[in-house]
């Protein structure tokens, strides 16, 4: 096997492993038999996994469509499961043992949504330039 093919195969395996790990984390986030704070910690780990994959995409000069699709799927998963946790965070003191409030979960979901929009939605280049001009004028 050539070095290039071996690298591609290793990268594919890494992504597949990440996908399987994300499935395990998501199942743990949804496991209501576990305490909410444990599930919130697991959810933050799921978010961290999404972020690691995004960093790999950023540093890869030509990410392949499968990797982008997995990134999109994991982001959707993290946003959805975070929303689910938020519904259970009615009591403002529930997350106090972690030193956070539900607002931290909400802020992380917002951050994931921004990432989703920037990576996985279409944009019209003309509109993009017009908005940049409107907001920043001659600076762009």
């Amino acid at each position: 096997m050539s070095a290039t093919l071996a690298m591609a195969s290793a990268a594919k395996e890494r992504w597949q492993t990440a996908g399987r790990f994300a499935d395990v984390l998501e199942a743990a986030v949804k496991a209501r038999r576990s305490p909410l704070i444990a599930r919130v910690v697991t959810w933050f780990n799921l978010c961290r996994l999404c972020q690691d994959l995004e960093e790999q995409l950023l540093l890869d000069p030509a990410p392949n469509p499968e990797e982008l699709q997995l990134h999109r799927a994991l982001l959707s998963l993290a946003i959805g499961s975070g929303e689910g946790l938020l519904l259970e965070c009615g009591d403002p003191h529930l997350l106090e043992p972690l030193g956070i409030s539900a607002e931290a979960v909400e802020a992380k979901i917002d951050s994931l949504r921004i990432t989703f929009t920037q990576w996985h939605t279409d944009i019209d280049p003309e509109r993009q330039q017009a908005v940049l001009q409107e907001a920043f004028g001659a600076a762009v």
Partner: protein
Amino acid sequence: MPRCELLEAILQAQYELETAEPHDLPDCRARLHARLDQAIAGTHLTRMELLSVLRDRYKEFKRAQLLAEAR
């Protein structure tokens, strides 16, 4: 704040939000919102619309941050 500095401040604030520890997230989000609101004041743009059009610049910014951290 000059407009070019404001743009840089938005990219920095988004990066800080993405990489924040859980207990810092609400403050980081508030800082990003403040910068975005400054940029869209007097326009009909939304925060998300502005962030959406900054996608390419943000990716460049983040790539540079990651490479600098790896050195």
